[in-house]
């Protein structure tokens, strides 16, 4: 279309928009085509020509400000094979929330694969995905960034070349291998970062936490962020460092918490000290006690009673008050020393039954051996199977068929599947999802066969994760 035609088209268009005849405005060549017809037909002919001109000769003008995102980085693991993607999508679809979806992702990563980016992408704020996804998290976060994730060693010099998630992953690895070097980096570069980033960096100190970290963590007591000061206090508490000594007055939180705990004695011959929750008069007091458990450190509380952390835990009367037991378990998980955590886990697992369930709150602090022991214990007893869904930070894909057959789990599952109780069936669905995450591929395969034989529909959505698991034989 030449310039005259373009100008003509523009004026005709304006004329038609407001209404009227455009024949006199048309380019000469177009007029020739329409001239012989009556006025209405002339307009229609011109309309047809204009329509084709707009369709073919004119294209949408591309804005000059079109923005291209950097290419999505390739990840270190291979993509899940195409044939397994329908199974994966089934499992993701069935996963009710982000936590359940992240379990699917973790299972696939444990078998040596990553997901297709159109099937699942971590959010920019994601901090729970397997480390292999760090480049995608950074890609999600870096809207206009020119930087690229680097594979070399993180140093103070190249600190800014790393996106946050890649930096976090690199620092976590460094804390495991050379904690002092990593601490020095956090110390050097962290102070200039905003409080939110500083907090995530300090949180990485829990990898390889040791006495050498004490001076640095103590130095953070002057940090301008309250959250950073609180986190540093917790890490110091894990190292057995007492907090700021209180004045034992009514404003001292440790003293206030201690007042909510009853110290007693038990045993006829060898009298030993016991600690149990005091009976409170009002829900307001209950709430206050809960707040104090969440903010106080175990080492300070034990010191307040003049005992060591393991002694305090050993003397706590688990089973008397469920909610307070959970608060104690959370306090131990947050601020207990490694020794206190393992002591509590071993003691309660040995005791078995309901008290063992409180160990679930310690899961992120336990080594994989202890985690597995607890899960096997719960599976063997089956009384509290539902609690398995609370387990956090557990490894995927290790549960053997023997772990299911060595106890009441399998018969209980079969009975529930064959029954007609909808509530029980919902519990089965949840358990199958959990087992879909924990099981080995062979166990998943056998479990599917077993529950289908018991009457479960072979295509039941609750088997989705087990099916995916069974299809992923290993890295």
């Amino acid at each position, binding site marked *: 279309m030449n310039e005259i035609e373009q100008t003509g088209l523009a004026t005709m*268009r304006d004329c*038609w*928009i*407001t*209404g*009227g*005849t*455009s024949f006199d405005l048309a380019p000469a060549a177009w007029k020739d085509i329409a001239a012989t017809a009556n006025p*209405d*037909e002339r*307009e*229609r*002919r011109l*309309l*047809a*020509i*204009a*329509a*084709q001109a*707009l*369709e*073919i000769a004119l*294209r*949408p003008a*591309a*804005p000059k*400000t*079109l*923005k*291209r*995102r*950097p*290419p*999505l980085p*390739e990840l270190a693991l291979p*993509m899940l094979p*195409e044939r397994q993607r*329908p199974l994966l999508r*089934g499992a993701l679809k069935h996963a009710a929330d982000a936590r359940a979806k992240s379990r699917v992702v973790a299972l696939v990563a444990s078998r040596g694969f990553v997901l*297709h*980016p*159109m099937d699942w*992408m971590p959010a920019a704020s994601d901090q729970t995905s397997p480390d292999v996804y760090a480049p995608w998290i950074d*890609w999600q976060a870096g809207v206009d960034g020119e930087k690229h994730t680097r594979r070399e060693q993180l140093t103070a010099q190249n600190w800014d070349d790393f996106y946050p998630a890649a930096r976090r992953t690199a620092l976590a690895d460094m804390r495991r291998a050379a904690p002092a070097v990593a601490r020095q980096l956090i110390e050097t570069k962290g102070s200039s970062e905003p409080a939110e980033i500083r907090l995530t960096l300090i949180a990485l100190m829990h990898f390889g936490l040791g006495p050498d970290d004490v001076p640095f963590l103590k130095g953070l007591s002057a940090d301008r962020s309250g959250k950073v000061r609180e986190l540093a206090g917790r890490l110091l508490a894990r190292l057995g460092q007492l907090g700021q000594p209180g004045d034992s007055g009514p404003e001292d939180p440790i003293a206030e918490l201690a007042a909510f705990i009853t110290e007693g004695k038990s045993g006829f011959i060898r009298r030993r000290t016991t600690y149990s929750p005091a009976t409170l008069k009002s829900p307001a007091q209950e709430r206050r006690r809960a707040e104090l458990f969440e903010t106080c450190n175990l080492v300070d509380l034990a010191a307040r009673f003049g005992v060591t952390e393991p002694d305090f835990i050993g003397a706590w009367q688990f089973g008397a008050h469920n909610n307070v037991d959970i608060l104690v378990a959370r306090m131990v998980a947050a601020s207990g020393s490694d020794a206190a955590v393992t002591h509590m886990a071993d003691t309660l697992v040995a005791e078995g039954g309901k008290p063992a369930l409180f160990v679930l709150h310690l899961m992120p602090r336990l080594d994989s051996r202890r985690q597995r022991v607890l899960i096997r214990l719960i599976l063997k007893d089956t009384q509290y199977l539902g609690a398995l869904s609370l387990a956090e930070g557990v490894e995927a894909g290790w549960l053997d068929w023997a772990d299911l057959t060595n106890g009441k789990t399998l018969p209980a599952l079969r009975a529930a599947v064959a029954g007609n109780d909808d509530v029980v069936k919902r519990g089965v669905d949840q358990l199958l999802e959990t087992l879909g995450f924990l099981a080995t591929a062979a166990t998943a395969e056998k479990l599917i066969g077993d529950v*289908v034989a018991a*009457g*479960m*529909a*072979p*295509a*039941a*959505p609750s088997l989705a994760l087990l099916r995916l698991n069974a299809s992923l034989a290993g890295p």
Partner: protein
Amino acid sequence: MKTIEALAPDQASLSSASKLTKRSNWPRLEKNEQLALIWGECQGSGSNPYRVVVDTGDHGYKCTCPSRKFPCKHTLALMWIAATTPASFTAAGSTPEWVNDWLGRRRKTTSQPAAPATGAAGKSIGEASRDDETAAVEDAAAIERREAAQRKRAQDTRSSVSAALDELDQWISDQLRLGLAGFVDNSSDRCRRIAARLVDMKATALAGRIDEIPSRLMGLRSEERPDAAIRELGKLVLLAKAWRSTPDDAELKRLVSTSESREQVLANPEAIQVESVWEVLGEKIETRRDGLVSHATWLLDLNSASPRFALLLDYFPASAGRRSNAFTPGDRFDARLVFYPARQPLRALVVERKGDVSPREWPDFGFDIADPLPAHVALQDTAPWLTDCPVMLPPGGILLDDRGEAWWQSTDNPHGIALPIADTVNPTLLGLDLAATAALWSGSRLHLLAAQSGFGRLDLS
């Protein structure tokens, strides 16, 4: 399993079907591999079990249950069992009577009328021939009457459609006189009125198209709508003119009044047949204002050196719930297709499906980088009344403008043509290099169907 999901009319059916996959629900499960049939009896709430049969070759099905969903949960469950536990089916040497009945009815409706079988049992060839001759003599008058009636009906329809197009012309002139600004603002009412008139006057297909103009306009930014209105109305003018010059043209009749039946297309010697490996690129499902759902499935010929597309088009009432044909995006199969005769044949029917083939990359089509829309230009040159045109775009990527709207742009020519995308795109796409992209170009927007990327094939429809 993908096929079953695609066939299911809704999620509830799928869920109900999953509960029926227990072996105990099915007192009878049989198969005949030669005929590619599976059938069974499912114990429902009634006194008699429901009888279900499925043709595993083309996913045809029949169930005796009263459900108004198609396929019903029993059919889905039977397919499901076949997919997950094929060993549940007993091999049967012969098919039961009710399966034979269904097969018989099916063949009558889906294939050309078979020639009368000569030498039928109990008759000699001579007798059979005599019967045929007698029948031919007896039917000759009836056939002539029928044909005369058909000719009369066709003539009436042609007159009626011609009058309808006169009204349409006048209506278009009125829109120009009154102003396209007003047309854009009131397109819904105005189009509805003329569409109703066109239906009365047997220009049904054209009425359906005009009914969709408002939604096509509303999908654009307000400043683009006048140009789009010019394009829509101008194409109607061209279509009306083309029909008047050749009212018997199959393509134009299809676009103006009614479409041919499957049998007519199959019987048409001008209909091109192509046997090849096809990939399902994607689907476009739209609920129209006339209460029909149009389900368009776009296929790509993987054996063709230049991009060749096929469109499988299905209409069904929206009240029947979600339906689907047997295709899922990404499926690849060997099949013979027959194309509806047209200047640029696109719409097709599957004549014979020979089975699935393993995944493979798209062929390298040797793109013309200077212009990503040559196919569109070619199509508009020969059939300027068409709207959506399938195109294969060269290597490119998806970019965002200041308003956050997505554009496709060629990689090798970043300062050249960029095409705006109709729908919201998955943000992940912004980080992917697209080696080739299949899309529909509407003249103003791209509807993405599928793409090849470094991360493999992407479903975008």
